């Protein structure tokens, strides 16, 4: 088997372990390339079905194309789509774009806090009703005990220390110094009440692997990743005010693969266009310990 098929098989194996072991399972879908590859793996693992909700944290500052793409695939692939948000912070305008808080605090409120309270079911969840063709308040308010996330270990320092199955305590925090052992393909699937486990099927993938796989499998991606004729494209997607495009003329997937392999970005970190990373001492560790993906 080639490398991509090996990565794919391990990813599918992990997804199936998660599905067999966690009653309240969900998958975070950020709309970005990594979690979309993850969604594709889920459809492969379960033969066209996605047997757990896809959860998106809507900061309301995402680039509009991202939300349009999310809802298009939700309809086309009949996805069990759920979103959550920090309604209070948005109403009180406690955001960076409103000029009231710094970037890190904004991330903490709109992402980490919203994520925590959506996962544990304290704040309302909105589920897409395919018959009514609209989002409605989700009746299911049970806490998710297994959360599948598309992080990769090559993204930044703290992610390189992750386990495939990584426990979070009742406060959503990550004890990086005391992680469970993973022998071969046996993972931590037992957990105390009130805690949950983050599951990371893409840990061993690199940015190039992701694009090569998107090319091989013909996975639909947001147009923002490609140059629309202005010599710019997004390499990593996030909120509009804190995400910057990179100089690139890559117009399609194969251009991107060629670009990554040519070494154009070999010495520039993938998340260099994400302003919040820089404010967190060059890594995402502070945010990630508090539950950021």
């Amino acid at each position, binding site marked *: *088997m080639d*490398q991509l*098929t*090996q990565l*794919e*098989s*391990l*990813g*599918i*194996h992990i997804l*199936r*372990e998660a*599905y*067999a072991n966690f009653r309240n399972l969900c998958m975070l879908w950020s709309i970005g390339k990594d979690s979309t590859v993850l969604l594709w793996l889920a*459809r*492969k*693992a*379960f*033969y*066209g*079905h996605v*047997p757990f909700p896809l959860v998106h944290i809507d900061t309301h500052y995402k680039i509009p194309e991202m939300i349009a793409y999310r809802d298009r695939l939700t309809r086309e692939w*009949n996805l069990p789509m759920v979103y959550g948000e920090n309604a209070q912070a948005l109403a009180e305008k406690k955001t960076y774009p409103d000029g009231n808080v710094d970037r890190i605090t904004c991330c903490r409120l709109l992402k980490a806090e919203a994520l925590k309270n959506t996962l544990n079911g304290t704040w309302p969840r909105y589920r897409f009703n395919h018959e009514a063709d609209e989002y409605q308040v989700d009746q299911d308010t049970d806490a998710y005990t297994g959360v599948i996330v598309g992080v990769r*270990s*090559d993204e*930044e*320092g*703290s992610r*390189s*220390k992750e*386990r495939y199955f990584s426990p979070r305590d009742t406060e959503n925090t990550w004890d*990086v*110094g005391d*992680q*469970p*052992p*993973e*022998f*071969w*393909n*046996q993972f*931590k699937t*037992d*957990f*105390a009440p009130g805690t949950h486990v983050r599951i990371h099927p893409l*840990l*061993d993938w*690199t940015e190039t692997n992701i694009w090569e796989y998107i090319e091989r*499998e013909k996975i639909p991606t947001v147009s923002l990743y490609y140059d629309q004729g202005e010599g710019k494209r997004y390499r990593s997607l996030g909120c509009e005010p804190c995400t910057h495009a990179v100089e690139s003329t890559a117009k399609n997937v194969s251009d991107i693969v060629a670009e990554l392999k040519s070494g154009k970005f*070999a*010495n*520039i*970190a993938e998340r260099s266009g994400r302003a919040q990373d820089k404010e967190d*001492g*060059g*890594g995402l*560790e502070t945010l990630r310990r508090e539950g950021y993906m």
Partner: protein
Amino acid sequence: MNVVITGHVDHGKSTVIGRLMADTNSLPEGKLEQVKASCARNSKPFEYAFLLDALKDEQSQGITIDSARVFFQTEKRHYIIIDAPGHIEFLKNMVTGAARAEAAFLCIDADEGVQENSRRHGYLLSMLGIKQMCVLVNKMDLVNYDKKVYKSVVRKYSRFLKSIDMNDVRFIPVSGREGDNIASLSENMPWWTGDTVLTLIDKFQKEQAPVDLDFRMPVQDVYKFTDMGDNRRIIAGTISSGTLRSGDELVVYPSGKRATVADIENFNGPPLESAPAGMATGFTTTEQIYTKRGDLVVRAGEKAPQTGNVLRVNLFWLGREPFVKDKEYVLKVGSARVRMKLYDTLKVIDASNLNTDGMKKMVERHDVADCVLSTKRPIAFDLVEDFPDTSRFVIVDGYEIAGGGIIREVIRDKQADYRNRVLDRNLRWDTGNISCEERTAVYGHKPRLVLVGGPEDPRKAAFAKVLEKTLFSQGIKAYYLGVRNVLAGLDADMTVRRDEVYPEDREEMIRRLAELAHILLDSGMVLISTVSYLSFNEREIFRTSVAPAKVRTIWIGDPSESDVDADYTVTDADEAISQMEQVMDVLQKKGVGK
């Protein structure tokens, strides 16, 4: 390729990798300068190890607390270098790092020599199944690049490796700090003309998936997603060895049921002709067979796996609490998950010096042990010398994975002979055109055996008959079978006195009843049968015959006379009848009913 780097604390692992990255220009632009600047700001000397210690905690403590993954590339191929911690507190992180690797580097400080964790890590690498290993005798600069010092470390450590059957290990003298023999040959050691770390890493062989071995696939799940009109029933799993082909005749263990592969399913394409070892796959079968997560699928005619519930294993313990007898744990092997206990410790080894203690009756943190485990029900697995993958297990204590190891042999237990007969019966079983699942769907309930045990008392039968009637009135195909009915016909050849067979015939009587129960359950019935006394071992015979999950037990009599852990216990039969509602409630929860 995944390569792990291990060794005793402070023997310089992170420095070696940091140096390798820096000298081969594998670092992101500015990273080296950034770390150097940060060191200057905090007025501490720059170390190559800081490059890896991306986490803030680590820099302050100066030790690698987790297995960090570093991507690295030579002209030949891509590598993931797993930097495993050397500190004893973080041994579980070392195990995690090493369990994912195909080859290993182990650092030994030339000045300090072989230390506790040099041996412990060597032993663990061997148990984890790593066959390719290279020892880096590091910090040669501290011993004036003296060949004699190097030779002495090589001699001492080779002797140790030999004692644990790790052969074919290479050695290189290096200095991570000065960059000797890392990316290029060292001018400080003209006496060394062998490999550098960089040339050696390319010599590790890519581990080939065992496609040519016999076929093995632990069943991860059985999928039947009915939405969008999907009617496929797909048996899913990752192939651990061999190759699956469409049309293959398969046997599912531990039950021994057979099935033929119809289609190897494929999400967005036509069915596949075959699927090799390592692939996460799924297939449909031409006949409906009952299989579930935890089963092991093999090809008919190939080497059969082991089945049993008493296993001799080698294990490594990481739990905070010691591994002790009389406590229940969970064993995970392949996709199976079963409750288990420590039955006996044969030998407990302190992995740091390989001193054995044959008298020690518990396994403490960081000990390696040769011991016997007993599982609550029989499971299917392989022995490490046949199929390493399906011989590997972990033990869960509470919520935590507390140990892991490999299965060495299966120990014959009391049930072994009967289990083999059942296996043989299932292999030969000729099923009609209606599957058990189809019957369940039509009848609206699952087949079950309810055993009513307890001291001799005709009122047990009276209770069983009321139970039969109650179930029947709910539309369940329930059938009462009293022991007297069997003795009069099926067991007419046995010596019977007052409705009891003579002791020498009792085991055979139980076996026949268990076989009869198997037939009736196969037909979809809920069978209620009384057996006077009923010992734990006798109940095991029923469980072996019809599958453990299908047997429920009610004990009527003094519970102190019973060694059976019954689902419902009541001291008197009349009382049992008056508690029918509670009995039904318990049975319902345990899968008896609609």
